[in-house]
């Protein structure tokens, strides 16, 4: 009887060993997708000249760069869009000029559709599930009826500053382009 038990154990272990030889690399192969994708250099980009931006009317600018996709790289792809909102400068002289322009990621915090500008109401509207945002990026609840705002949070504000070009002396808007997890109430940077 003891011999029998031993033999059962041995066959079981040998079987498990063979299975793990395939199983372990198998699992790690499947989990490859969890690894961080390639380098994301130079997220800071010049997107527009300050003088080209109208006041109080959002402008969408594309963020162009190299996009890596498993085994291919697409050199000039639109990686995303950013809405720029230039506020009327109520600041007195000497105030921080950065405050003049706000940059929002055009990716909807709800499920990632492209947020559009609703020209009629002059606010942002996501066509997918009708999330509405004000020009300050905050959620707006549609007045009529019970319809709630599907977005869990306000539009994602991106770091944005004004720089003066050394040669042309033009003022440019520079944006740090980042992506955030969708569907969360908090703004979490995509790993």
């Amino acid at each position, binding site marked *: 009887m003891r011999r029998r038990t031993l033999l059962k154990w041995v066959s079981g272990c040998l079987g498990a060993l063979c299975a793990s030889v395939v199983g372990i690399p198998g699992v790690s192969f*499947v*989990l490859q*997708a*969890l690894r961080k*994708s390639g380098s994301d250099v130079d997220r800071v980009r*010049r997107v527009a000249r300050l003088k*080209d931006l*109208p006041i109080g009317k959002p402008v*969408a600018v*594309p963020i*162009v760069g190299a996009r890596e*996709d*498993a*085994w*291919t790289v697409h050199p000039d792809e*639109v990686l995303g869009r950013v809405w720029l909102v230039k506020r009327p400068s109520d600041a007195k002289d000497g105030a921080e000029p950065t405050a003049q322009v706000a940059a929002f990621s055009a990716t909807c915090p709800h*499920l*990632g*559709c*492209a947020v*559009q500008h609703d*020209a009629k109401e002059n606010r942002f509207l996501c*066509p*997918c*599930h009708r999330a509405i945002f004000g020009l300050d990026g905050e959620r707006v609840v549609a007045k009529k009826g019970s*319809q*709630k*705002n*599907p*977005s*869990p949070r306000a539009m994602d504000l991106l770091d944005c500053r004004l720089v003066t070009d050394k040669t042309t002396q033009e003022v440019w808007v520079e944006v740090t382009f980042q*992506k955030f*997890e*969708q*569907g*969360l*109430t908090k703004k979490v940077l*995509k790993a």
Partner: protein
Amino acid sequence: MQSFLNWLDARTDYRQLLAPIRNRVLPAGPRWAYSTASCLLWLFIIQLVTGLLLMLSYSPSTTTAWASVHFIEQSAAGHFLRGVHHFASHALIILCGVHVVRVLLARAFQAPRELLWVTGLLLFPLMLLWAISGNPLSGGLKGVSQIEVEGHIIGSTPWVGPIIQRILIGGEEVGHLTLTHLYFLHVGLLPLLVIGLLLFHIGQVYRHGLSVAELGGPHDDVSHWSAPNLTNLAAAHPLAMMPPRLKYFPHQTVRNMTVLTVVFGIVAAIAWQHGAPLDAPADPTLPHTPRPEWYFRSLFELRRYFTGDWEFVATIIIPAAVLGFFVLFPMLDRKCSPRVSAVLRVLVVLCGVGTWGGLTGMSYLRDWKDAEYIASSVEVDALSARARELADRSLLPPEGAITLLRDDPKTQGPLLFARHCASCHSHVDASGRGLVASEPSAPNLHGFGTAEWISGTLDPQRIASAHYFGKTKFAEGDMVSKVKELFDGIEEVEAVKMRDDLKLVAQALSTEAALPRAAAAGHDAQAPIVAGRELLSGRLSCTDCHRFHDKGELGSAPDLTGYGSREWLLGMIGNPQHERFYSGDRNDRMPAFAEDTEHPERNLLSRRELNLLVDWLRSDWYEPPMTSVPAKPRNPILAGN
């Protein structure tokens, strides 16, 4: 033949193996209602066969998926097979639902058939997963945006959601790996799972035979059912002996095959008529409003009521609870008397179908009333038709189908114009259709460079209208006054003559543009052009201000040499302040879109965009020969999946 079969049987015992099928008896005789099961099985086999055949030519990757599907669509057989594969999947889902309802109403889930019931219920969501893993494989706009949304739904589930999402998508964003992963699911893992469950499910059917309820026997006493074979069954229910004991084959089989023929006939007819849809190649830069397939519309609607962190209630908890309820339903049912059970089951079916139908209907109704959604699906349909049109023209480049619409002036032109030009310029035809400027303050550019457009600038009434220079500072400029002068104080006869002359000038100038449409329409007769040119530099003295070939000087008015040509427009939009156009302070608010040749990335328009815009303004794009029958307009809502 018979002797061969005998020989085979002696060696393989196949008759023994097939005996359960060949000798199967339905105690209550054959019924049409039983056909749902067999029909499902055959549809499933049709899916396997058509799917395997499609695999011969399909290639999963973002660069090849759409292209290979379009390649399949090019042959009549491929078109038909893909159509069958597509529509049979819908039929399969509908039949699955019917089958579950039938089994529920027949109370066929009672002991000892619980595992039959549970495996059947598990097959249903697996079937749905199987279907939705197939939709994005075509690399089309709708399928890919669906998987994006589905990925986000999975990702917003607490705890494991994000991990599963990343494994499914194969990284952060939809790409090659998304397609290979879905392909793995669609043709590998899910078929194996479904086949495994299905074999078990069918094995159970043979083991337990039909249920008491289906046999029409007494409902209450389940104790007989411990003995699983048909002899006992018949002994326990003498009534079951009453009808002649017809064998399953062929008496039930012929009913099954009739139903299958009808169902498959419908599927094949639709596949033959319409084929499976193939929408535009997926491109995140194209605007699109994704909607789920019809069978997920109810969940889509449900999700509207659970927002923010609670969304997973609608997407995960409620569906799981419904499934759990059905799985455990036999336990609830056992406690009820037959009469209560009958009422309960009818109620469950009515509530289930009612809720599902209600939610689905509400979702469609919402879209039906949503003008923006309808507009966007009409647009997507137009893009899809255009993409197919371009792909039919020639084989695709190695970068794949995404270039089709990206390099198409007809598609990109309006987008670029809306983004960069339409704050001042309109682009509307005579009937007012097109892109209307938000604050029109510059000429309407529809038909720019055509004789018709140019003659407007030579017409004293029209040149100062809002369609031309009315809203610009040129309204008070030399050109307007010069054109008005031409008609000052002349008699009617002379005015008619003058108009004819100007028509010649417009014609001569429009040939400078060398518009492809104009040449095709035969607007390039030589004699009037020569006359127009002479007038231009001669009697009408346009060259006093404008340069025209070797006459006149640059610097005071736009160059008329090559006016409206590709090269002229590229220069004008790139930098209107160049001396060829409106140098110095003569330029009225027109920005330079591509003046910086050293740092092209600082320009408002890239070289590519500029080319596309100019080609579009000149209507210089591919149109297929007008032989094809125009496609029937499809219902944007029902086709919107």
